[in-house]
């Protein structure tokens, strides 16, 4: 099908090319005859040859040369109206044929050059378009990669925040479970042995020997429980603080980097007032981060519970006196009443439905281990303020 289509177009182009050659030469003849030339008339035939070659190519051009030569010979070279040529007239014909061939050849070369140039230009155009499209595609890919990356970063931030929160709760509850079990076993044994002892004494006559055995077991188990407590104490001493000279501002910023997604999610308006040139403190970076994280998370949760009120968190650093740095975390949450303020730092005291009640207790232990103080006050307006002091690096204990 396609093949025959091609053949058709080729045939029609051949017909057109040679037709044009015939037509242009014929036109040259007619015009030349109508002008009734006195000398050997060639210029219009040159024109016809150029046109035929230009539009039709080399072969139609040659065809036009041959045709024009024959017609010139027939009509304008004596004997007129015959193809025969007198020898004397041969130079005339040659004078036409040679330049005609030359002009045809030049035209054909010129046409080829033109065509090549046009093709080159077309190709260039195509290439430019192709490159532009490629560039556009690359650009789009880049854009989507950037968006993807942003999403990934957000996810990482969120995961970090979740993890920080989870780790806080998990370690707390796991530790509590483990300690509870370790202490509960000897306690259970003590209670049961005590019950047994009473029963040995209650029988008639009392079985003193068995009662003594029971009491001995009670003492053993009491000691065992006390050993457990000793081990826990030793453990807490063993994890010694990794203290270094720190800027409290940097520690706060570390934490804010972690909780930023939480702040955004809860639409909390954060204001930081860092006093310039605040003295450095000497402390354990991770532990201080934990304290600040704990205070900030508490604030966010307190503000989440207080509905219909703008959520404002203010973190402020200043010098309490020349030897101490003061950090304040102030929120516009549900706040604290006088009774709560008394108890919030006790272990297992919580105002939150899902709280463990260890966060503030541990925070206070950490701050006190750093030679500082942690306390809470109710705001005159809504919310609460938690503050802690730390000795400056020069004043380190």
């Amino acid at each position: 099908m396609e093949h025959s289509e091609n053949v058709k177009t080729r045939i029609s182009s051949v017909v057109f090319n040679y037709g044009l050659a015939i037509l242009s030469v014929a036109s040259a003849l007619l015009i030349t005859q109508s002008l009734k030339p006195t000398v050997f008339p060639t210029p219009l035939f040159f024109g016809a040859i150029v046109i035929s070659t230009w539009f039709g190519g080399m072969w139609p051009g040659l065809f036009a040369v041959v045709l024009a030569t024959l017609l010139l010979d027939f009509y304008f070279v004596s004997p007129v109206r015959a193809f025969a040529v007198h020898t004397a007239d041969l130079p005339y014909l040659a004078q036409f044929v040679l330049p005609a061939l030359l002009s045809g050849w030049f035209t054909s070369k010129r046409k080829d050059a033109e065509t090549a140039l046009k093709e080159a230009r077309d190709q260039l155009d195509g290439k430019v378009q192709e490159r532009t499209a490629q560039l556009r595609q690359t650009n789009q890919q880049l854009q989507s990669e950037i968006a993807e990356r942003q999403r990934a970063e957000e996810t990482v931030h969120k995961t970090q925040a979740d993890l920080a929160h989870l780790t806080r709760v998990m370690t707390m509850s796991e530790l509590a479970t483990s300690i509870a079990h370790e202490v509960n076993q000897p306690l259970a044994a003590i209670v049961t042995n005590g019950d047994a002892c009473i029963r040995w004494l209650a029988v008639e006559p009392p079985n003193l020997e068995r009662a003594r055995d029971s009491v001995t077991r009670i003492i053993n188990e009491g000691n065992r429980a006390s050993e457990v407590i000793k081990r826990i104490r030793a453990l807490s001493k063993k994890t010694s603080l990794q203290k270094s000279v720190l800027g409290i501002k940097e520690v706060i910023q570390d934490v804010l980097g972690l909780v930023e997604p939480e702040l955004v999610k809860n639409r909390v308006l954060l204001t930081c007032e860092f006093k310039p040139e605040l003295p450095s403190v000497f402390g354990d970076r991770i532990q201080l981060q934990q304290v600040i994280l704990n205070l900030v998370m508490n604030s966010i949760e307190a503000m989440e519970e207080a509905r219909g009120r703008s959520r404002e968190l203010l973190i402020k650093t200043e010098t309490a006196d020349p030897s101490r740095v003061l950090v304040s975390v102030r929120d516009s949450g549900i706040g604290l009443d006088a009774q709560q303020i008394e108890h919030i730092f006790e272990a297992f005291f919580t105002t939150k439905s899902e709280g463990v009640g260890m966060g503030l207790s541990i925070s206070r232990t950490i701050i006190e281990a750093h030679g500082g103080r942690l306390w809470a006050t109710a705001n005159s307006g809504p919310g609460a303020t938690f503050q802690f002091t730390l000795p400056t690096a020069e004043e380190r204990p």
Partner: protein
Amino acid sequence: MSNPEPIVFVVDDDAAVRDAIKDLLESVGIRVETFASGREFLARERAQAPSCLILDVRLPGTSGLDFQRELAAAHIEIPIIFITGHGDIPMTVQAMKAGAVDFLTKPFRDQELLDAIHRAVAGDRDKRAQNAEVAELRHRYEELTPREREVMVLVTQGLLNKQIAAELGASETTVKIHRGQVMRKMGAESLPDLVRMAEKLCIPAQRY
């Protein structure tokens, strides 16, 4: 059948808790045997006396709940009282569904444990008595001749001697004799007594 002294088994990996429970139970005169693991308990031959098992939920290796399943899979029927350091509700529900008698949180009050033991042992005693009765009835039933068994089935379905005779193609007198034999061999005092025995033996009530 004699009435052997009940026995309580304790499986807990904590020797102090194990000994304390043993001490308490001995102070009220209950026979106790203690084991550090489920394996040790399984190695002991099965008790012929009414018994119960006090099982710690938190055991190294197989947990108490796993051990409960193991016992069930091995068709070892013994009432279980679970004790645990931390009573969490889903675990309790799971244990109770699997047939535990009680679930006590350490430290427990002595009376709580003793009451649980009494309930468990009483239950086990009833179950054992029932099993023994069924075994005895089955033995008696097996002593019957095939003809007597047919008569017993028809009698317990409420058919009259005449109907039974027609059914079996025998004379009414023959049926009467068979019926007397059945009552005597089964040790039944009355027709309702025999019907009750048939129920316990799961003798097919329907023949048609």
